[in-house]
């Protein structure tokens, strides 16, 4: 279950990446992957639709909440666990 969530989250993030990157790691920073502004908002929407969760996310403070791929994976994991 946990690995599955991680895999699905990674796939959604990968669809927004704007740089050449063969595989994502937890430590990759969203900013370095070119995921900023509207791309990040679209990523959050895709994640909410996929996992049927509400992600508290304000683009104005995005840099502090979701810095890395791991931050996003963990946040979704928590929301999915809370739902179950």
């Amino acid at each position, binding site marked *: 279950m946990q690995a599955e969530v991680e895999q699905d989250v990674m796939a959604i993030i990968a669809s927004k990446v704007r740089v050449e990157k063969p595989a994502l790691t937890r430590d990759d920073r969203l900013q370095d992957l070119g995921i*900023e*502004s*509207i791309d990040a*908002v679209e990523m*959050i*929407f895709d994640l909410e639709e996929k996992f049927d969760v*509400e992600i508290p*996310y*304000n*683009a*104005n*403070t*995005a840099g502090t909440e979701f810095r890395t791929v791991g931050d996003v994976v963990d946040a979704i994991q928590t929301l999915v666990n809370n739902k179950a």
Partner: protein
Amino acid sequence: MHRVVVTGLGAVSPIGKTAPDYWVGLASGTCGIGPLTIPYAEELNQKNAAEVKDFRPLDYFQDRQLSSLDRVSQFAIVAAREAITQSGLSFGDGLSERTATIIGTGVGGHNTQDDSFRRVYRDNATRVFPLTIPKLMANAPASQISMHCGLRGPAFAVVSACASATHAIGLAFHMVRSGAVSCAVTGGTEACLTFGAMRGWEAMRVMAPERCSPFSAGRLGMIVGEGAAVIVLETLESARARGAEILGEIIGFGMSADAADLTAPDEGGMARAIESALADARVATTDVQYINAHGTGTAANDSTETAAIRRVFGAHADKLAMSSTKSMVGHALGAAGALELVATLMGIREGVAPPTIGYQGKDPACDLDYVPNEARRMPIDVALSNSFAFGGLNATLAVRKAP
């Protein structure tokens, strides 16, 4: 080329439903942001907005007239009547045919659209209200002003999201300046606080939950507002010949497109609009004392606008005052530029820079004088009003104290 002056002002805002009341609210730092009271608000995540409160249509219109008037047109007509009354113009002797009506709006009749589509999609109704289409069209406010005020010259709407009103006023200014028309009734209007539109804003993830704190440390985004402002423009010669009270002069207009990101602001695009307004006005950067900022309260706009001001004004950036009245009335989108131009004109006239309220401390990326929290008495001769829209469309107006 004629000199173009303002002889009438009208406003409908969250802090006052006439221009004088709006100004009292601005000068006293009144916050018009509060809980959303629209239908189905309880289902929304966003709880706050800047509504025009206690706006009773029957105070302004007959019952029969209202079936053809969306809230966006009601606001526009009320503001236009106020501005025209103040101007003292009567539009006889062919003046009506030589008067332009140019009104900006972001989305037009959003309440009509939301109400009608809710009936068909949510309530499974098979028909909508008969005047759904002519109420929701974006040119409805311009058309309704022309009909209600008897203005038969060029009339149309200008749509450029958050810069709509500034573009509209700029075009009207150009038409009066060139002599294409003798007079113009121009401004902007918006009434888009609907369930559907708020869901759209929620999805953008740019709204602050409670208050709008432009340029401040810890700011959390914009607050959506509504309202209208309309001004009357005519030539300096005609205003003087009539003995009309002159409320200020429009001296320049600048526009640009970023041709870059759909939503991210662009320092270069902003700077080009400002520079072109200054060039059009033939004033130097050092002539400007006050700027009414676009100042949405988002992290990105406020730091980018600050950088654009630094780029254009250099050392003089530290000598001028720049405030965001959106801190008090929220972001009224297609009406914002007109509400802000009225604030700027009244500020010049009164010798008062309206404040940026909700300012909690300095953000290193926003290091100008934002007139924090309290209005400031200061002489203002030349001022700018900035509007920078989604889609990368920028517009700046330059104004001067009445000659």
